[in-house]
């Protein structure tokens, strides 16, 4: 059984993520309890909105530890946009809020002469050795970002005012600052590669 669950962190892109997976023949189910997250072949954290509010939803559902365990073990887990930022310790966006704290990084706002939020398509350039990531154009909708690829992770970077981390992967964990569900055929192919790992894990 290759069940893939979604952690409900808010409204804004749940329908788009669900539709993208449905086009790949995978119907996501909503996770309600920690065992839903720990027991699934794959888990998707489609965070949108503010860092603090998204983490508060994860905490209110009591799903933080189950997510952290999956990520530490490298089990198939996809985190999108603010979901990727939640891997970090904290964010300038929500002072005082603590994320999943897998990465000892503070997420910072874009700087320089660029329009914020970054809304639109930008180039994703993976570093060597990526399993999931390929060069291409992805759709971004973010005001905050990670500034460096953490040790032990493979990363892709993108230029917007300065270079920032547009994706990370480690084991079967894929973190995307962009929205793969809105990134056309390139995004669909990326989701398909990640989805394959949930079948191997099942």
């Amino acid at each position, binding site marked *: 059984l290759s069940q893939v669950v979604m952690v409900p962190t808010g*409204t804004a892109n*749940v*329908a*788009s993520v669900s539709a993208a997976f449905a086009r790949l023949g995978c119907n996501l189910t909503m996770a309600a309890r920690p065992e839903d997250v720990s027991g699934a072949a794959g888990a998707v954290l489609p965070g949108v909105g503010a860092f603090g509010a998204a983490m508060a939803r994860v905490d209110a559902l009591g799903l933080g530890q189950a997510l952290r365990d999956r990520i530490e073990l490298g089990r198939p887990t996809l985190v999108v946009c603010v979901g990727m930022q939640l891997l970090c310790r904290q964010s300038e966006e929500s002072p005082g809020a603590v994320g999943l704290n897998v990465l000892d990084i503070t997420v910072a706002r874009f700087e320089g002469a*660029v329009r914020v*939020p970054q*809304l639109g398509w930008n180039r994703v350039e993976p570093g060597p050795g990526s399993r999931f990531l390929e060069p291409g154009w992805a759709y971004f*909708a973010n005001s905050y970002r990670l500034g460096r690829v953490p040790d032990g992770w493979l990363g892709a970077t993108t230029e917007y005012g300065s270079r920032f981390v547009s994706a990370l992967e480690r084991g079967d964990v894929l973190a995307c600052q962009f929205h793969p569900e809105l990134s056309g055929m390139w995004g*669909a192919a990326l989701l398909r590669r990640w989805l394959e790992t949930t079948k191997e894990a099942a």
Partner: protein
Amino acid sequence: MSLAARVVPCLDIKDGRVVKGVRFQGLRDAGDPVACAALYEDQGADEIVLLDVSATPEGRGHALETVRRVRSVLSIPLTVGGGVRGADDAGTLLEAGADKVGVNTAAVTRPALVGEIADRFGAQCTVLAVDAAGTGRGWEVVVESGRKRTGIDVVEWCAKATAIGAGEILLTSWDRDGTGDGYDLDLIEAVSSAVTVPIVASGGAATARHLVEAIRAGASAALVATILHDGHTTVAELKDALAGAGIVVRP
């Protein structure tokens, strides 16, 4: 900076159908919003805007169903506007599959609505739609589909709305809309220098040259409708022309 300039087709929908006449080659049913949106995605559209021009509760219901159907086939962003009166309306559209929601008249009536939507769903999905009419000295906001002039200064309104949470401005020149005379470049320059969020230029496009001018004037994206619907050009041709002018586009 490598962020690409966006070409954004806009479909006016009413009772589940595209209105304003769509006449492409190769579509069996040119009035079906799902077929139109899919065709534009294939041509390289960077995003689709659906504008619900229904005025009735029944029409709103049809619009939600249209958003669901378009979402199921579309793998690029979808912005939906028209008839958003409260944050709950925005939530309903997002749940149906919109990625961004446009607010217009209701935000002019009650500006706090912009902040309410941004607080609940994020600035990145809160689009301020502004219809601007020239006054000779500047531009004033018009509402109710152009029927009512408000006397509110467009540049000041955009600055205020972005300060309370709007993450993008869909800026329509009421004077140019439907004329084919090109976007109002002075309007784009005035608003883009007053705010730091992206601007989608709208109203007046007839040629690829007009899109190039709008991007150079400070727009991050260009909305197109009639020239695509009439089959005079394609998204791919417009993007080729932008690239030929040295503007970065998604291939």
